[in-house]
């Protein structure tokens, strides 16, 4: 294996560390400093504000729904993509990846054009039957699902491909039915991949901003989510509250990363 000469090795190492430190490390430290500049007071102010606590509840509720739906869809879709052959499979697989490279604003617009009660394709009909999608929870859950769509599928597919279907076939030949095979063989094998997918989806869902800004209508105390409150508080010069809420959101995302990093077995290093 090629080794860099000592001075080059140090230069590369320091450059990499400095880049990450100035781009991510130091800014995060500054956030912590600003949050705790007046001790815990910004937390007290922020979390006694009913708009903030309500927004946090809305965020948790919407994310929970989206994660549950995406997990069911993700595991099912991964099984279909890996274990079965059907026409259009490759195109479907590509379209599932599309949200990774799509702007959240475009996602919000797409949902508005179909489900808006004023001008959407289906919106007016749905509202006539009492189902309000846009500026309401269903639309917000859909937007969050759209944004985090590929995360579970992408975690589960490689694991399913790696384990193959020998055990499943053996179980089937011994008389197990489809449900038994799924519950006893397949699900235990992909358990950790599903957990990673869920944690990543959760982090992504809790932090969604652009798509939710459009489909939620950003109504304070009603459909406003935590990231939307951060923007509003910051622009209304309640910066202490914005920092306090951001700190909580960062803490959650770092926690998610830690969980994934601790659960995932260390890849063997050469």
């Amino acid at each position, binding site marked *: 294996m090629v080794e*860099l000469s000592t001075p080059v*090795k140090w230069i*590369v*190492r320091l450059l*990499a*560390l400095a880049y990450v430190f*100035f*781009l*991510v490390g130091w*800014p995060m430290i*500054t*956030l912590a400093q600003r949050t705790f500049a007046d001790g815990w007071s910004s937390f007290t102010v922020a979390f006694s504000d009913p708009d903030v606590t309500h927004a946090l509840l809305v965020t948790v509720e919407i994310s929970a729904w989206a994660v549950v739906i995406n997990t069911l869809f993700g595991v*099912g879709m991964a099984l*279909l*993509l890996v*274990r*079965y*052959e059907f026409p259009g*499979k*490759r195109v*479907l697989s590509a379209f599932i990846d*599309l*949200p990774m*490279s*799509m*702007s959240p*604003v*475009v*996602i919000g*617009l797409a949902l*508005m*054009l*179909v489900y808006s009660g004023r*001008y959407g394709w289906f919106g007016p009909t749905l509202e006539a039957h009492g189902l309000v999608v846009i500026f309401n929870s269903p639309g917000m859950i859909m937007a969050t699902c*759209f944004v985090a*769509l*590929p*995360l579970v599928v*992408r975690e589960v*597919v490689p694991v399913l*491909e790696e384990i193959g279907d020998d055990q499943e076939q053996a179980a089937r030949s011994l008389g197990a039915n*489809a449900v038994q095979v799924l519950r006893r063989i397949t699900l235990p094998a992909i358990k950790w991949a599903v957990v990673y997918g869920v944690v990543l989806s959760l*982090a992504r869902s*809790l*932090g*969604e*901003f*652009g798509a939710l800004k*459009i489909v939620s209508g950003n109504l304070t105390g009603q459909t406003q989510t*935590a*990231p939307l409150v*951060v923007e509003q508080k910051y622009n209304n010069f309640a910066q202490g509250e914005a*920092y306090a809420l*951001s700190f909580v*959101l960062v803490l959650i*995302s*770092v926690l998610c990363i*830690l969980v*994934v990093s601790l659960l995932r077995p260390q890849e063997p290093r*050469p």
Partner: protein
Amino acid sequence: MTAAVLGQDTRAVGRGRPGVRSTLTPGAGLGLGIAMVWFSLLVMIPLAAIVATAGDEGWHGYVDTLTNPQTWAAIKLTVGQSLLVTGVNVVMGTMIAWVLVRDRFWGKRLLDLVIDIPFAMPTIVAGLVLLGLYGPGSPLGINVSNTRTSVTLALAFVTLPFIVRTVQPVLAELEGDVEEAAASLGARRLTILRRIVLPAIVPAIAAGAALSFARAISEYGSLVLLSGSLPFKTEAVSVRVLSFIEGGDRTSAASLATIMLGVALAVIVALDVLQRRVARRG
């Protein structure tokens, strides 16, 4: 740890492999049906709606939207900054991946962990975090808020993990014996890096670059607080789409969104091609 997320694993499933049943069982067929109904309602019909709405005023409306000077400025800014940031990522991301795989030092696991933070952090918070160090009252004395540099900074932040996480696993799987053979035949370090290591990781770098470009061009949340979205100066394409939506101009919003959708699709197709190239090598 986001390697599998940022890698291109799902795209490998398109290949027909021995051992894969070629027909759907009734149960699987029903599952596929339900999944497709949800997928159509969530993704396919809304995307079709964008394209259809963009076509409302025909080719003429389309050209009008894009040649609007403010929109054109936003496109130029976004594409330019995305290319710049992707270039930076190609160099820095590859370097960071190299350090994570081949170097050994105290605190390496922390570096590995920090790389994923931009991926998991809410984008609006990313903007706020950068504002702390590079905005008004910066401890460094640097204030880039409301300038083009702030756009570069925000995009570099949110795209940090992409190339690192696509190159890292490829570099880790690289066998050392080819390099040792080259060295025993008298190749110098630079020659080995250029002739053996680089060709092996180029497809991964390209895949990471495509993802990073797509992410940069579609970024919205982290720019909101940092760039100020000044027309003709720091306004990005996503912000422009949003102001069209808020102004009730759905046709223009959809026209611009169609182009962004086209770029996103092109990236997915490019990744698919790259994935097959990587698979052939492996």
